[in-house]
Each structure stands twice: as C-alpha cells, then as structure tokens.
C-alpha cells in the first residue's frame, strides 16, 4: 500500500480552488477571443470584450472572476492501493475548501438547510464530493467551482429509446432556448446520456470538465456534439442574452450503459467562467 497524508489532499484542494476562481483557463480564453472575432452582433462583441478584460483584471488583482465563487465539487479518484493517513479524507476536502474561500476572499454561497433556515454555513462547506475507486496507487482530484446561475438552468429528462438522436437534440436545444439567457452566455453545455436517474447528471457534469474543443472519442457522439453546437448557436441568444451568433462555446457529451427500458438525458449548463482544475497525487 502507498500511504498518502490527507493533509496533502487538503492542500491540493486549497490550491485548486484559489487558482480556478481567479484565473480563467487558457482554453476558455482562446475560445472567447475567437468568439470576439467572429461574433456578428456589435453589442455581443462588446460583451465578449468585457469578459476578456474582466479575466485580465481578475488575474492581475488576484480577485475572483465572478462574485458567485460557486459550490465546490470534487471528483476524487482513489487508487485502490492507496491508504490515507492523518485523519478523515472527507474532512480534508472540506478543510481545503474552507481555507481557499477564506484566504482568497471568495464568496461563501452555501446554506446548510435548503428549505427552511437557509442559513449560510459561513465557509462554503460542505463540498460536494464524488468518490471513485480505481486501479493503481495514485489519487486524482478533479475539481470545479460551479456557479448556481447556470446550474439552475440545467435539466434532466427520462427519455424513451424511441426518441432517438433527434429527441435528444431537441431536448438539449430546448433546454438552452428556455434558460440560456439567464445562464451567463456564452455557455458550455455538458450532456450526459445513459446510466440511471442519478448517473446521467454526473456524466453531464464530468463532460464540462473536459478541455474545450476535445470531441468525444466515439465518432457518432462527436458528430452529435457538432450538430448541437450549430443548432444552439442558431438560437441567436448571443453574449449576455442580448442577441448574437455566439451562444455556446462548446457542447460536450458523455455516455454510459443504460437499461433496455430507458434513456436518461441530462443537460448541465456552465457559464463562461468555466472553472475547473486537476491535480494528481
């Protein structure tokens, strides 16, 4: 067994959230720059220029790109030959989030009780943690600071196999048509197809963590991504929802095995502050 101190996990989580909140990912910046060149709407181009300038200010001043510094989501892939020492792994993740959000002057946006008290926990914990056990002796942390404005516009449909690719396309496009303007466009759309009621949304979230423009390895799903990109940009929602030709920067699809009787489809929308990062210990 390889021993890993949970303090190392805490430190990795802290570093990930401090960095992703203040520094726009290079692939997102490149994509916004390209959109600024290609956008047809003059007002849309000025919105895209604002977003690029915002990213420069955030990086220069080490301040968050967006006041909604998100809810911390961490995918932890743990090698089965790893033994954690020095405390609770779950608490180490929360500890890293707590320190990042305090030290980085990041907004704390988590309420403990969703329905009645809605009292702010004060330190942006608890984080949402997804554990997976994999072969090997490494620990891989995939993290994202997910804002709620775009999360609120996401959707899940329990579709029928008979709905086919056309049904999936219509559902994804309709979800963006209804909520896209509120989700801080240009957006990134993650689509999860298959699995069960709980797995499709997880696939959609993981799809958002892929580098922009990296197509699905299966040529049929890659084609679906391209078709969705075209159709969504054809909606005309545009930057900030004011109208324009850039509504989505990327559509990324993940799929998994499902039941003979169903085809769950989840659409997870992410704003242009597509904040995520990865560390392997």
């Amino acid at each position, binding site marked *: 067994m390889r021993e890993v101190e949970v303090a190392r996990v805490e430190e990795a989580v802290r570093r990930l959230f401090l960095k992703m909140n203040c520094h726009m990912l290079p692939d997102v910046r490149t994509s916004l720059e390209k959109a600024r060149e290609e956008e047809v709407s003059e*007002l849309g181009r000025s919105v895209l220029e604002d977003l690029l300038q915002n990213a420069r200010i955030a990086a220069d001043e*080490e301040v968050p790109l967006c006041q909604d510094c998100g809810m911390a989501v961490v995918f932890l892939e743990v090698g089965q030959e790893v033994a954690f020492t020095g405390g609770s792994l779950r608490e180490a993740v929360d500890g890293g989030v707590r320190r990042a959000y305090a030290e980085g002057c990041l907004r*704390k946006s988590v309420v403990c009780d969703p329905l009645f008290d809605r009292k*702010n926990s004060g330190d942006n914990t608890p984080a949402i943690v997804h554990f997976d056990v994999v072969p090997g002796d490494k620990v891989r942390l995939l993290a994202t600071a997910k804002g709620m404005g775009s999360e609120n516009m996401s959707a899940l449909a329990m579709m029928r196999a008979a709905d086919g690719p056309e049904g999936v396309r219509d559902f994804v496009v309709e979800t963006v048509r209804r909520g896209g303007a509120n989700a*801080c466009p240009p957006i990134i759309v993650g689509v999860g197809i298959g699995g069960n009621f709980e797995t499709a949304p997880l696939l959609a979230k993981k799809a958002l963590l892929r580098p922009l423009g990296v197509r699905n390895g299966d040529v049929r799903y890659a084609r679906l991504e391209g078709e969705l990109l075209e159709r969504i940009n*054809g909606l005309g929602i545009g930057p*900030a929802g004011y109208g324009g030709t850039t509504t989505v920067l990327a559509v990324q699809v993940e799929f998994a095995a499902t039941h003979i009787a169903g085809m769950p489809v989840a659409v997870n929308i992410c704003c242009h502050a597509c904040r995520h990062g990865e560390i392997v210990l």
Partner: protein
Amino acid sequence: MKEAKRIEAPFGEELARSLRSGERVLLSGTIYTARDAAHRRLVEALERGESPIPLKDQVIYYAGPAPASPGKVIGSIGPTTSGRMDPFTVTLLEKGLRAMIGKGTRSQAVLQAMSDRGAVYFGATGGAAALLARCVRACRIVAYDDLGPEAIRRLEVIDLPLVVAADAWGGDLYREGPPRFRREI
C-alpha cells in the same frame, strides 16, 4: 455603436421613460444591492409599513459581492439572475422603485408594472464581476448584516457600464435581440 448615455442615480420617471431597450448607459451615483433573502425581508418589512432603505426613484442592483481583499472597497460584484426576484418586484415598483440592475429575463407581470409606472431594467454583463467592482467607489452595509453576502449595501458607483435590457415602453432586449440573429438548422 452609439456612445453610452451618462445618467445619475437616483432618477425620476422622465429619465426612465427616455431610455430604450438596447441602449448602453454609464450609471453613476447611489444604488442599493439586494438579492433573494433581502427581497423576502424587504417585502415583509413593507407589509408592516417599514422600509430599511428609501425606494422612491431608487435603483436596486441584484448582487451579492465577494468579500473585499485588503485595501479594496469591495470584492467582485456582478449581477445575479433577476428572474428570482420577480415575485417581489411588483411590490417594490408600487413603492416607487425606478430601476433594477441584473441579468436575464423578467416575467410579464414585472414588464407590465414597469410600463405602468415608468421604470427601467438594466442588464449588467453576467460574470464581468471584477470589471464591475472597479466602478464601485464606496460601499456600506445598511440592512440585514446577518445575511452576509446577501445584506443590503449602499454603493457609490461611477460609470457602471449597463445596457437597457427592458424599458418603460414594453421594449425587451431578451425577446427582441435573439430573433435578429436566429438561423434555422
């Protein structure tokens, strides 16, 4: 693109009615932040005949800032989704609220009340929070301190860059903008 119009808050109905959807403005003066929890409390206070802030001719910014870094007036402060405030907005407009700053679409009831009363809805660029923070010169919590980021703050702003998203004449950029760029595929 037409040059942005400079306006000063608070302002009256005449100025509000002169603004048209799609127009860019630079807003200076005094505005208040309020979002979800503050709206709930504000409307409850109004039902008791109280109000912790003036509403007549005022501007409310739907925003909850990040904490200020050392030496700064305020942390990043971009708009939140306005639609969540729709259930409370007609009440505030009835009390004289003149303008709102946020992002995203509004309900028909809000747009109608804006037309009836001569109010305007500005869009600020969602996610441009570090850039928008540079326009804030002073910030003070004036109500509901316990709500943290959701407390009501009075802001002094200079040249806050906004777009008239919906005007007092039924104009709505979120409805009128996209069809101009729509392509059937």
